[in-house]
């Protein structure tokens, strides 16, 4: 809401010494937050001038400048011999713009003028071979709003609108300041000077007289006949008629200036008055050309498919929810949102019907959204307009039409409906103190409520407060607490630290997730966060088959991009995008990880129910909410590109391999004390021969790790072999035991045996290893230390070499013990895997 300060000061008697900044600060603390102060700040001799002569001069740089002689009245120098034209009293000014001519009235900033837009004081200076004694100003330099006429550059004033030497500051209202206030949705009343003035009076502890009370209300029947068929949508409807308006008249400067400063455009006298009253009192209103209205004005809901052409020349198709204003000719307005074109005020209009109504806020809110038609009127109606104001509002419009347009206000008014009664609210007198934490006495609170327009009753320890008709936000006891606190001052709230009794710290999953994050960083991975929006093309790039579950996305009704219509089902899309970006920026080593959610639609997804808010939903209802949501587990993913170990002076580098991804996956599981087995799998986007699935003890697959399919790597512009992994972290956390493995070891000496086996290539190393580990109780650990194929190894076989550590918990092993354990291992390898000792 833009509030011209000059206008505001006419409505509330602010002491002259209160600066605009002080006013804005106080209003900010009264919940009318300052966005910015517009205007003001110009000082010095900003003067109207008449261009007497122009001499265009071509410069070396190809530019043509205009060397001008300008008449600035009382500010003239007696003689400027150097300037073009006859040497009469004037000033010589160099100007780079060309959109003005001899005889034009322009605005000149003479030396000593300060223009905030430029940020410095204009001086007399030598330029292009002349002494330029000031500057001819553009709209932008003056801080005026740009429109199509001003875009050309220099502001050229209307002929005859001023005389050379006049103060342009005064003429253009440039000294005026306007507050741009952010009005929250609950403070609808502050979308008017009336409302802001009331809060200003409250903030500065000044008396306030309501400008609505100054309007002379029409008496008796009259106006224009109205029939309201939908009193719920239109509780109050008022018309007043003005005849004999002189259509040639325009709005006076002071009104145009106020409207313009308030952010609206001057159109015609009638429209300007209509807007002026909306700004002044907060009552949106509409003027119909009476000659174009036929028969009674009727308010009703639209029939489906009915159409109306609104003032913006758009034909709109209506629904039965739309509230319309009709006459015998059909629809003449979309209630509270925009008038119709058929009864629009024109250049010949002399008689008008002034309409001021109170519309149901929800109806207006929905209509405005449905037709995507935000308007100044709708903005006010949807938040709530004072329903008791229609008569004063219409009368104020009529009064101004008579005063400024030469018209006659026809006696009486049509006033249909009744103002809805305000509902009183009761609460304990100490509630403001208890909730705000500030000591607010009942007397103070009562005074505040009354000055806000409330009727207050005190009954023992209970307030019963009836809000005024313009306050739509005072419905609950706490609303009154805010009102009292606003006056007591938000800056008076003391600082008291509450003392909760015994939190339980982070949850186990929160602790474990942090642990995983640290382990990943320790493994050399850099964490990234990626956007979750993906589309089919992204999933194509991963090479996911058509029937892959991950192609079923949670889709958005309003995605930002048609290419990314839904949420991701795998972290690899974002991680591979990030890897691509890094590689394209020249990074050779990109080893990145992310912990984040993926979104998997539940197979029988239904709409989530909407409940009332007057009670807690039942456990079944809460369960239904959760059941409607997709499964959103946190995953951990990683992509490894380049070298796992870099080459250096002390050794060669080691390129990333499938095994690095598996090692990281195992490390993540290990830090959670989760036993995972790996086994070969074929899953996109992995290399079909280099993918390990990670299997929990219960057999469920918790993720995959290995090498990215070379085609997918190439598709993403990633060089070399790329390691990737993705694990369902939620599932892994759920498998993490509350108590980890217990340390258990023997102090007796170890015996070491190395065994190399020849075994068929298909036999997985892990299978053989675990067979060996289980062959004897004396085998403490088995570790594979070599894999070999080549000379002396038959085709179709490979050599796997293991280090066995043998130990007993209770004795030193004898040679016989060791031999027995070794033989058992060899035997088991032979039995289960047809492995032969090399």
């Amino acid at each position, binding site marked *: 809401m833009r509030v011209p300060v000059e206008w505001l000061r006419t409505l509330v008697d602010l002491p002259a010494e209160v600066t605009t900044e002080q006013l804005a600060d106080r209003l900010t603390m009264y*919940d009318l*937050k300052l966005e910015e102060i517009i205007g003001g700040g110009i000082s010095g001799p900003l003067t109207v001038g008449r261009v007497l002569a122009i001499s265009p001069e071509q410069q070396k740089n190809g530019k043509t400048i205009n060397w001008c002689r300008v008449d600035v009245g009382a500010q003239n120098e007696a003689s400027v011999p150097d300037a073009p034209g006859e040497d009469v009293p004037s000033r010589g000014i160099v100007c780079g713009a060309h959109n003005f001519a001899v005889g034009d009235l322009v605005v000149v900033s003479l030396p000593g003028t300060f223009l905030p837009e430029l940020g410095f004081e204009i001086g007399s200076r030598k330029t292009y071979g002349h002494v330029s004694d000031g500057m001819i100003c553009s709209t932008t330099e003056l801080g005026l709003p740009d429109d199509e006429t001003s875009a050309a550059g220099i502001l050229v004033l209307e002929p005859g609108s001023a005389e050379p030497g006049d103060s342009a500051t005064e003429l253009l209202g440039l000294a005026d300041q306007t507050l741009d206030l952010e009005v929250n*949705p609950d*403070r609808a009343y502050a979308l008017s000077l009336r409302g802001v003035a009331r809060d200003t009076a409250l903030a500065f502890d000044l008396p306030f007289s309501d400008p609505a009370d100054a309007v002379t209300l029409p008496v008796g029947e009259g106006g224009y006949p109205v029939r309201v068929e939908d009193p719920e949508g239109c509780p109050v409807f008022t018309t007043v008629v003005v005849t004999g308006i002189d259509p040639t008249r325009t709005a006076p400067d002071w009104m145009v200036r106020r409207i313009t400063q308030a952010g609206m455009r001057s159109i015609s006298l009638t429209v300007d008055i209509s807007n002026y009253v909306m700004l002044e009192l907060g009552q949106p209103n509409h003027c119909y050309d009476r000659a174009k209205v036929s028969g009674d004005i009727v308010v009703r809901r639209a029939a489906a498919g009915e159409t109306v052409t609104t003032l913006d020349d758009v034909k709109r198709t209506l629904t039965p929810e739309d509230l319309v204003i009709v006459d015998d000719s059909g629809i003449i307005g979309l209630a509270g949102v925009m008038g119709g074109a058929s009864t629009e005020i024109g250049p010949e209009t002399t008689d008008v019907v002034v309409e001021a109504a109170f519309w149901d806020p*929800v109806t207006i809110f929905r209509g405005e*959204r449905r037709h995507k038609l935000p308007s100044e009127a709708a903005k006010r109606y*949807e938040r709530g307009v004072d329903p008791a104001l229609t008569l004063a509002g219409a009368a104020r419009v009529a009064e101004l039409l008579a005063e400024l347009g030469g018209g006659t206000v026809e006696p009486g008014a049509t006033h249909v409906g009744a103002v809805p009664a305000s509902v009183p609210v009761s609460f304990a007198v100490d509630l403001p103190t208890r909730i705000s*934490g500030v000591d607010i006495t009942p007397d103070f609170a009562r005074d505040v409520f009354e000055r806000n327009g409330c009727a207050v009753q005190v009954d023992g320890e209970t307030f019963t407060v009836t809000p005024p008709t313009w306050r739509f936000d005072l419905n*609950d006891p706490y609303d009154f*607490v*805010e009102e009292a*606190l606003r006056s007591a001052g938000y800056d008076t*709230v*003391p*600082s*008291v*630290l*509450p003392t*909760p009794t015994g*939190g339980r*710290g*982070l949850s186990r999953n*929160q602790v474990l997730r942090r642990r995983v994050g640290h382990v*990943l*960083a320790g493994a*050399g991975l*850099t*964490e*990234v*966060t990626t*956007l*979750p929006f993906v589309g089919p093309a992204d999933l194509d790039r991963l090479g996911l088959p058509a029937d892959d579950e991950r192609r079923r996305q949670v*889709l*958005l*009704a*309003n995605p930002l991009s048609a290419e990314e219509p*839904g949420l991701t089902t795998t972290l690899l899309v974002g991680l591979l995008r*990030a890897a691509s970006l890094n590689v394209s920026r020249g*990074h050779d080593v990109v*080893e*990145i990880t992310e*912990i984040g*959610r993926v979104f998997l639609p539940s197979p029988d997804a*239904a*709409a*989530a129910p*909407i*409940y009332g808010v*007057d*009670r*807690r*939903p039942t456990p079944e209802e809460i369960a239904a*909410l*959760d059941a*409607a*949501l*997709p499964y*959103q587990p946190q995953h951990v993913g990683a992509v490894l590109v380049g070298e796992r170990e*870099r080459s250096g002076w002390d050794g060669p*580098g080691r390129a990333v391999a499938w095994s690095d991804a598996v090692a990281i996956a195992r490390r993540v599981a290990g830090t959670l004390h989760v036993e995972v087995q790996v086994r070969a799998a074929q899953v996109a986007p992995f290399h079909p021969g280099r993918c390990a699935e990670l299997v929990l003890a219960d057999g469920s697959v918790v993720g995959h790790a290995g090498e990215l399919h070379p085609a997918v790597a190439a598709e993403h512009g990633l060089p070399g072999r790329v390691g990737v992994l993705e694990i369902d972290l939620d599932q892994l956390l759920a498998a993490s035991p509350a108590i980890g493995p217990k340390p258990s070891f023997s102090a007796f000496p170890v015996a070491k045996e190395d065994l190399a086996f020849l075994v068929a290539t298909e036999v997985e190393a892990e299978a053989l290893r675990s067979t060996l580990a289980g062959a004897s109780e004396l085998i403490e650990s088995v570790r594979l230390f070599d894999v070999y194929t080549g000379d002396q190894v038959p085709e179709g076989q490979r050599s796997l070499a293991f280090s066995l550590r043998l130990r007993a918990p209770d004795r030193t092993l004898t040679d016989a013990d060791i031999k027995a354990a070794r033989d058992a291992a060899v035997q088991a390898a032979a039995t289960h895997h047809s492995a032969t000792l090399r």
Partner: protein
Amino acid sequence: MSAPNSDYDPVEVTPLHPDEVARVTREALEAVAAASTLADLKQARLDHAGDRSPLALANREIGALPPQARKEAGQRIGQARGEVNRAVAARTEELEAVESAAQLAAETVDVTLPVDREVVGARHPITTIQELVGDIFVAMGWEVAEGPEVEAEWLNFDAMNLGPDHPARTMQDTFWVAAEDDAPEGSGKVLRTHTSPVQARSMLTRTPPIYVVCPGRVYRTDEADATHMPVFHQVEGLAIDEGLSMAHLKGTLDHFAQAVYGDGMTTRFRPSYFPFTEPSAEVDLLCYVCHNDPAQVGSCRTCGGEGWIEWGGCGVVNPRVLVACGVDPERYSGFAFGMGLDRTVTSRYDIADLRDLWDGDVRFTEPFGVGL
């Protein structure tokens, strides 16, 4: 070895003569002292203290002496041998030290050689700041609550006193989940526009007193640019207990500010409006760079000369929210607050473009290491 020769006069056995013993001892000590390497010393030891050394040979002669003479000769030889052995041991120690020092000197390396072969990891600052905030509140006895990012409309809006026709509902540009085939009215699901639905979930799943913070991702339909992202992070706080007021909210936020930005930090309230709180306030943080110090505030880039930085929104929980979430507003009151975490990071680390948080360029995260 010679047989005892009782016929000899001991003084006639030359090797045992005191002068002779003194001479070979002196020679031995001189040789030990002259050894400059362990190898020289070994030779000197063999020559002068070894099995074939004069003293060793002399020692053998003792047995040939008459018994009455053995004691004196034995003492003389024993002392001499002891003296030589001690000298050898001492010289060995000296030479070992010298040689060890030389060996170590020879092993000198260029310690400025790079040791960067291992890939070093780092954690994203948004992760770390969420943990930092969690830790601060856990230390105060609060807990960290979580909720889904695709959220039920009822929890995101209705339960937060943002009914379907509430004007404020359009203030939040919402991503809506596409409707299922059989749900023409809409899916009833949104990408949560704030972390506030976690407030509702906390009240629905816990019994007061409740003190929780909920850091997490939230979504708005903003096109990505330097100062907007469609996804960002908030932290929400909720306290429900008997007798809580705006004063406890202020105390909590002051404490939070001090924990993050250091002693002397404070906050201020400005009136505002949120449907889920009443009274509502915007909370400003004292500028942590200039501290609104008149000498510095004018040129402070962090706060733009304001002395204060907009931090978030807060207020007393609207009793309508309590009712919808099954908390008795007659018995309990509470407060809530929420602030963005992304801007906290960007303003603290002079990051001009919010997109840097999301692009995944490793150069963004690496400088943070594993902590802020």
